[in-house]
């Protein structure tokens, strides 16, 4: 168990190096160095060569690539990605202040998707081979194929344009500051409904499919046949023997959903003008705010890495075969 966790940690450190190397290569695969890239974009072609050279010197751009990488890496470890070229503020601060907004949306969507998706998956696994199971399998597939931005637009049409039930976009109404505390909460929640639905439906399909196949897999195992053979009631076999074991692979899924959620945030936050890191990212891409784009790319990759690390360690605790060192 300890060896498993230590080895997993070592791999995580290695992957972190890989993430920084990949991002560094991406930055440097752009034609020209970052300085001429900026100058070209900003149309500042009149800057004297001597000034450019001193800037290059200051940012270590005259050093060999591996040395440049080390400079960049040392800054990246402390989450120092430089200042945004939009407002000159540190990228780290800009990201940290948007993070709570993204987190709350994702957290609610994730919880709802798990709360509904897992029972639906279990239900359809129990109806294996029957019409309900096949119909729900097709249903998951269709949900999975729905483009989230289309669903968002349809929801906006229905709930905001046709029937004036929910706000079209934004995080709060114009008179938010004048409202009482409970009214503020209600206002915030109303603004969350459509973004949360948009984020949750595809997640739900993933949860349902995954828990269904996990359970179906367990039911095929010999120990389930053994439980049935010794005369355990079907319900007991299902809940006590099968369900508990099917939960273990779900832990992996919790780790895997983080990158999906982050990618989904970009689209949903853009459509609903939700002031989180996804919207920050798309705005930075559109304004070519290079330090913010690169900083967020590394930060989201590290978040994914940490999530899968936590999931793997939890898995080790949950699965006795790993815990007792049988399958390290």
């Amino acid at each position: 168990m300890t060896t498993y966790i230590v080895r997993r940690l070592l791999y995580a450190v290695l992957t972190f190096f890989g993430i920084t190397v990949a991002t560094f290569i991406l930055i440097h695969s752009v034609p020209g160095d970052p300085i001429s890239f900026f100058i070209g974009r900003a149309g500042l072609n009149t800057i004297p060569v001597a000034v450019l050279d001193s800037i290059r010197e200051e940012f270590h751009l005259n050093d060999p690539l591996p040395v440049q990488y080390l400079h960049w890496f040392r800054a990246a470890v402390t989450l120092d990605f430089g200042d945004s070229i939009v407002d000159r503020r540190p990228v780290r601060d800009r990201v940290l202040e948007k993070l709570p907004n993204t987190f709350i949306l994702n957290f609610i969507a994730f919880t709802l998707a798990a709360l509904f998706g897992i029972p639906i998956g279990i239900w359809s696994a129990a109806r294996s081979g029957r019409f309900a199971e096949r119909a729900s399998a097709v249903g998951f597939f269709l949900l999975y194929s729905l483009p989230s931005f289309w669903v968002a637009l349809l929801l906006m049409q229905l709930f905001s344009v046709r029937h004036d039930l929910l706000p079209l976009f934004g995080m709060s109404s114009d008179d938010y500051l004048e409202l009482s505390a409970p009214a503020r909460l209600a206002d915030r929640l109303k603004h969350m409904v459509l973004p949360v639905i948009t984020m949750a439906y595809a997640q739900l399909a993933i949860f349902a499919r995954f828990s269904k196949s996990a359970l179906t897999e367990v039911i095929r195992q010999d120990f389930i046949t053994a439980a049935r053979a010794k005369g355990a009631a079907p319900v007991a076999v299902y809940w006590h023997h099968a369900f508990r074991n099917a939960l273990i692979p779900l832990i992996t899924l919790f780790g895997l959903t983080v990158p999906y959620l982050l990618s989904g945030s970009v689209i949903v936050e853009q459509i609903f003008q939700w002031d989180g890191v996804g919207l920050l990212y798309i705005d930075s891409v559109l304004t070519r705010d290079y330090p913010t784009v690169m900083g967020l790319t590394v930060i989201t990759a590290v978040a994914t890495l940490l999530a899968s690390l936590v999931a793997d360690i939890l898995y080790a605790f949950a699965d006795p075969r790993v815990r007792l060192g049988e399958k390290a």
Partner: protein
Amino acid sequence: MTPGDSLWRLTWHRFRRSKLATFALVYVALATLIALFAPFLASSPNTIDLGSRLLPPGEGHYFGTDDLGRDVLARMIHGARVSLTVGFFATFIAVLVGSFLGAMAGYYGGAADWLVSRVIEVVLCFPFLFLLLGIVALFRPSMLTIMIALGLTSWTNEARYVRGEFLRIRDVEFALAARASGARDARIIFRHLLPNALAPMLVSASFGVASAILTESALSFLGLGVPLPTASWGSILSTAHEHIEYAWWLVLFPGLAIFTTVAAFNIVGERVREALDPHSE
């Protein structure tokens, strides 16, 4: 059916037993034909007619017009070209890269396997939309950039399938026989082993096309896809977003096109997977 039937005939036979999947396959073929013959099927997608801006569906414009008076149906038919070209070529690149790296990892094992597995881990850490948008931000967006970026970020599934298949069969008798008869590594890999990995690759490619179409339309929707005025399904939806309070037809039709095409590729892929699985049915 006779016991001597090939894997492909057997798979096809089982595939056809699903009406839904057969219908999806026909739909995919139809969409491909529409994309191929778009210029013969629709008038120019870029004819601006400011006199007929934002017209609802009706005579002359069956799917209505957009904010510049362009015919939505014509733009959708031409948009099919973008979606399917990006879908097929991005997947083609992903299959090439993935099967090459997967084959190296699975055949040579050891250090090659270790290295490829670490690279896959790193690629999977980047949320795909962040990585893609980052690439598109650095290099100017064009159909080529998008296809290459999509291909180079989505090969990990293919690599894992091929690696797994190679690990399973590299020491089976026919591979040993090829090696004993003096075949070079390249010949064993491409002639003897790779054909065995084709079936799972077909499944993964079908899912790959679906997700590439979905991602391309998302990029176009965000304004970072194929540059305007080239028509694409995602960019029509982006216009729809601006006119959400009024133009429902701009939302409905292009969205349906994306959804049905993506669903068709997914359904075909899932059915091929089932048909290839000796344990199912």
